[in-house]
């Protein structure tokens, strides 16, 4: 009983806002202020309004491209770096590992102006590429993969070396296929973080050409802040991919975030 007393209110508080977003999105103008927990007469008119008045598909497409690309690139660079750290001992290896470990201490707000200036000099303001640049490598991904590769069975690697496999083959034929679980966990984490990213796009975006959906919601909120139905419809569209991933892979999503949390 005390379990439910402690958890039911927390669960309700956690989910109610999301529920309210989805149901508001489906309400017609007549019942937008109704306190009834679900719409009596569900309609898609809010979604039609958003699609007709904002470039929402374009924004979602940009976000998808950005999140997919940054996830793929970060997985690749982290896999290579983690392999270097676990396969060899080389000068400064510990120092360099610490360089990755400490980089999360550097707050984004401290480096945002220098990065902005650099991007502006390269003439990349308002491009999708500029969004990717600071996300070519993830320190967290490097650290998590180093840990995963360190626990990789030694004898398998030695057997492969006796067979004369080059380190390149060793990495792609033996290690990576066996690290599918941690790689998938990281992919989920990186994709969701990129999808929800807000700071950096806010600095760089000028037009819908390169804007992501989070920026779209922000400008809709500033310009049409009281059109609650369409605002909630747009928010629902922005959440849909993440919520679908969550519904499909709930255990894995929770585990990968918890793991990242304890890794720091």
């Amino acid at each position, binding site marked *: 009983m*005390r*379990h439910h007393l*402690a*958890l039911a209110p*927390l*669960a309700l508080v*956690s*989910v109610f*806002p*999301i529920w*309210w977003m989805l149901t508001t999105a489906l309400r017609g103008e007549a019942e937008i202020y109704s*306190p009834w927990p679900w719409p009596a007469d569900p309609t898609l008119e809010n979604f039609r309004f958003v699609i007709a008045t904002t470039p929402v598909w374009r924004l979602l497409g940009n976000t998808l491209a950005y999140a997919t690309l940054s996830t793929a690139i970060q997985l*690749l660079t982290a896999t*290579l*770096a983690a*392999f*270097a750290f676990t*396969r*060899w001992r*080389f000068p400064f*290896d510990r120092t*360099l590992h610490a*360089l990755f470990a400490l*980089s999360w*201490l*550097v*707050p984004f*707000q*401290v*480096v945002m*102006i*220098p990065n902005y*200036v650099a991007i502006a*000099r390269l003439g990349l303001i308002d491009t999708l590429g500029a969004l990717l640049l*600071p996300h*070519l*490598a993830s320190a967290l991904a490097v650290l998590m993969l180093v840990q995963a590769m360190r626990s990789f069975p030694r004898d398998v690697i030695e057997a492969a070396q006796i067979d004369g496999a080059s*380190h390149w083959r060793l990495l792609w034929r033996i290690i990576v296929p066996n690290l599918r679980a941690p790689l998938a966990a990281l992919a989920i984490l990186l994709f969701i973080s990129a*999808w*929800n990213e*807000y*700071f950096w796009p*806010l600095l760089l975006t000028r037009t819908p050409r390169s804007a992501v959906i*989070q920026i779209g*919601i*922000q400008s809709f*909120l500033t310009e049409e802040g009281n059109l*609650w139905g369409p605002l909630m419809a747009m928010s629902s569209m*922005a*959440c849909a991919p*993440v*919520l679908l991933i*969550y519904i499909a892979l*709930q255990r894995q999503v*929770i585990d990968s*975030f*918890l793991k990242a*949390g*304890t890794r*720091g």
Partner: protein
Amino acid sequence: MARTFGHRTREALAPWLYLAPALGAVVAFTYAPLGYAGWLSLHQWNMMPMVEPRFVGLDNFTNLLTLPELEQALANTALHLAALLPLTVVLPVAIAILTQELRGPWRNIYRGLIFVPLIIAPIVAAAVWRWLLDPRFGMVNAGFKALGLGPVAFLQDPDLALWTITWITGWKLIGFSTLLVSASLAGLNPSLIEAARLDGASEWQVTRRIRLPLLSPTISLLVLLTILLGAQWSFAYIHVLTGGGPLGSSNTIWYLLWQFGFGSLAAGWASAAGLLLFAGFGTAALFLLWLMRRVSFHDD
């Protein structure tokens, strides 16, 4: 001879080649900008490409430390973080301990539900809470009205704006923290608790003397995360919901920094402020890490 030499050089180069992309990215987009921020902090510059940065020595730092807004922003940041700790540490620990024996389908249902806020985009969370807290039509005020209470202007009242921002920040993290504590509770050695029970310890004594000390690494981690990242996480809510207002009442140190950098286009000030923060929060982090190492003794 020549061939072995070539082979050896290649072998010695190999780790560097694998490391190069990630290392290059971290240096180019984290450490080099940090150095550039250090250089900028000694200059005055409005970020216009035609204008040359002008060297001003430590003026940016001295000006910053005497700013009237800074004091309010620092006080707000401290209050915000202090108020965040009950939501991200105290409640999660209490809930996790109270519900640790829960098994079966309910456990998974609750886990699934309380985790949801974490994966919701901050902007979406801001939009939804603005709708829920709307003074005229929001559900929360509708509930208050049903109880006979007047409408509350959560985001417009200078006495409430900061607490509202804190609540939204906490809302996103409370379930996640609870699961983090639950996970480390599940990893505790059960024989210690068994032994204490056999010795006739009450449930409260077991929690007080065994569970809490064993949880101390997790608790310190949550405190660390809250202090280091809490004010950063709330940035999006402040930016979208209050703009730091009304009357600067919800302005935190991170948001002030943003206003300097991009509101007044003062790159030198913003960089100086950023470095001061980095130094301050970095010291706090190292201190907490040191503390964590000291208290996590009990682990074995």
